[in-house]
């Protein structure tokens, strides 16, 4: 056999194998969750059940996506921008025709656990069933009991998704599931304490923290969700920092009370939240019980530590001109609140010296905060937060780049310089 024929045959064999693999993948993706016979008893919907479900719906922050701005609670319609198009959250009020009024316990379980709708359609993973698949049946039943008995039915048809070809097909979703999704459950680790396990269940399940705090691959799948290693939030230009890395948002060294305070109040002596996490704290974590927050904190503190992503030799400090320009801007615009040495005002304005949000890579969050300002969330523990003015209208790209470079390189901070082009790129999304 000539080498050429051999190669041709090998190629044909490879193609056949690839086709067979694809077929298997699609079959797997289609099948999973489609044959879930209903052996479960009818839904229990006592008041106690529903109250438990209301709490769990908070933990999963269901309302955040399933409520449009200014719209009726849980009636859907909010657009979720993804790199593949916009996915519109569905109506999960108990309206019989447009909501989930006719859904059984099994229908809801299939959506949460398998990512399939009542009619068998494969759901977009913008709905984080890749996390919710770890939520137990008792909890999904409680959430459904809440939605069906405590939420007002709203007649509002679901808005069709605006997802681009080829991602808009069930075939694509089947392939995606074959590659990236296996229905799972939560397996407690017997070697760990009860609160660590409870924390793991909440963080990996309803909390769906990995939806933001883990990087996504080109097909939008979280590559290592359990590691919570941080990632750019798709289509939003916020960076959700690593919850494991000591130079990002790892909390291994924080007192547990500080972690609990951050999640409950949005502000703590060791940190405060702004941006997308402000919404999480406001509508979800501040409502969690003390024991659940401690469990989450216990789990996060015990994440396997990750070495700093940036080593000192990689840091590119700003040149003296940019530093001087930044120092002038800082003195005029920033020092009154953040202090002449970046020391901050406890309870009001965070310190910038030693602040990981200032120095971490990529620097998108700190640039956006300078451009757009903003408030931490109003919470029970911090009902009247101090806000930061937007400087995007007053400062040029060069001034923003200079002042960000300055605070990243002063008072012991060691972050790389930021250039005007990075600022310009973020202006477009700074206040969204």
């Amino acid at each position: 056999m000539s080498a050429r024929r051999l190669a041709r045959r090998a190629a044909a064999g490879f193609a056949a194998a690839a086709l067979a693999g694809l077929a298997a993948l699609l079959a797997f993706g289609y099948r999973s969750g489609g044959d879930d016979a209903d052996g479960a008893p009818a839904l229990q919907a006592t008041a106690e059940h529903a109250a438990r479900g209301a709490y769990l719906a908070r933990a999963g922050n269901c309302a955040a996506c399933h409520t449009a701005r200014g719209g009726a609670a849980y009636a859907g319609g909010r657009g979720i921008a993804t790199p593949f198009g916009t996915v519109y959250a569905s109506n999960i009020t108990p309206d019989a025709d447009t909501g989930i009024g006719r859904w059984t316990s099994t229908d809801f379980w299939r959506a949460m656990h398998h990512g399939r709708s009542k009619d068998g359609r494969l759901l977009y993973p913008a709905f984080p069933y890749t996390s919710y698949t770890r939520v137990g049946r008792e909890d999904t039943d409680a959430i459904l009991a809440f939605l069906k008995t405590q939420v007002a039915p709203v007649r509002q048809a679901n808005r069709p998704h605006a997802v681009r070809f080829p991602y808009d097909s069930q075939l694509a979703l089947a392939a995606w599931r074959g590659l990236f999704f296996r229905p799972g459950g939560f397996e407690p680790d017997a070697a760990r304490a009860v609160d660590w396990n409870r924390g793991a269940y909440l963080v990996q399940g309803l909390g769906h923290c990995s939806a933001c705090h883990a990087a996504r691959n080109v097909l939008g799948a979280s590559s290592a969700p359990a590691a919570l290693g941080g990632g750019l939030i798709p289509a939003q230009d916020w960076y959700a920092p690593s919850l494991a890395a000591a130079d990002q948002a790892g909390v291994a060294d924080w007192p547990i009370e500080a972690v609990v305070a951050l999640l409950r109040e949005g502000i703590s002596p060791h940190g405060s939240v702004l941006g997308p996490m402000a919404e999480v704290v406001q509508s979800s974590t501040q409502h969690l019980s003390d024991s659940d927050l401690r469990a989450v904190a216990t789990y996060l503190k015990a994440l396997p530590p990750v070495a700093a992503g940036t080593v000192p030799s990689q840091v590119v400090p700003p040149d003296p001109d940019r530093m001087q320009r930044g120092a002038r801007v800082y003195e005029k615009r920033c020092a009154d609140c953040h202090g002449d040495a970046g020391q901050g005002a406890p309870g009001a304005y965070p310190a910038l010296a030693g602040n990981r949000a200032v120095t971490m890579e990529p620097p998108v969050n700190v640039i956006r905060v300078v451009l757009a300002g903003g408030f931490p969330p109003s919470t029970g523990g911090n009902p009247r937060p101090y806000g930061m003015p937007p400087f995007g209208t007053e400062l040029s790209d060069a001034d923003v780049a200079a002042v960000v470079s300055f605070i990243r390189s002063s008072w012991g901070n060691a972050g790389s310089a930021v250039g005007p082009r990075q600022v310009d790129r973020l202006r477009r999304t700074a206040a969204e």
Partner: protein
Amino acid sequence: MLPAALRPLVPWVVAAILPHAAWAADPRAAPVKVPDTLAQRVVACTACHGTEGRTAPDAYYPRIAGKPAGYLYNQLLNFREGRRHYAPMTWMVDPLSNDYLREIASHFASLDLPYAAPVGGPAPAALMEQGRRLVREGDRARDLPACANCHGEAMMGAQPAIPGLLGLPRDYVNAQFGAWRTGLRRAHPPDCMAQVAKRLTVEEIAAISTWLAAQPVPPGAKPAPRAAAPLPIDCGGVAP
């Protein structure tokens, strides 16, 4: 930056945390002490709306100082709930509670600050007269109430929720009429200003905004204690 607010927010991706590690701050630098006042808490607002909420008349941003608290509160809710669209405003109010927004509204409503003199060059007399007539008299034949019917004879608004019309930049007034006509700005239904704006021509809007922006505000002018009853048109947004 403009109707970027129209671009949907992206809530499933909820989680950018900004950890502020305070312990590494220079131990020699004493913490900054800031006043425990509402004025200090809302410096984010005065950055655009001017020191103490009294914007410069040549700016786009409207003055908020001294406007009725109910009106200001309604506007904050409108931004948060998508009835008004200006991305930087939505961004600011998004994480804030109703109670806090009400307090912020009351704070700016309580400020009693003098108005700057109107600016702008001379306008054609015919345009000014057309503006004056529409503001003062309306146009009964076209079912157009006079602005002063609701916004007060002094055009300083009325408690608790009708805004004053003086001391506003002309461009701001024009932009609001445009937004009402296209449905970009809305109020609680029935949306009376949307109806009024749709009955006006572009030329009439220019006349109204030009005349209003040229009026000086008398010292001590304040919103009327209550609105005329009944209003000449149904307005859902006037409830406190």
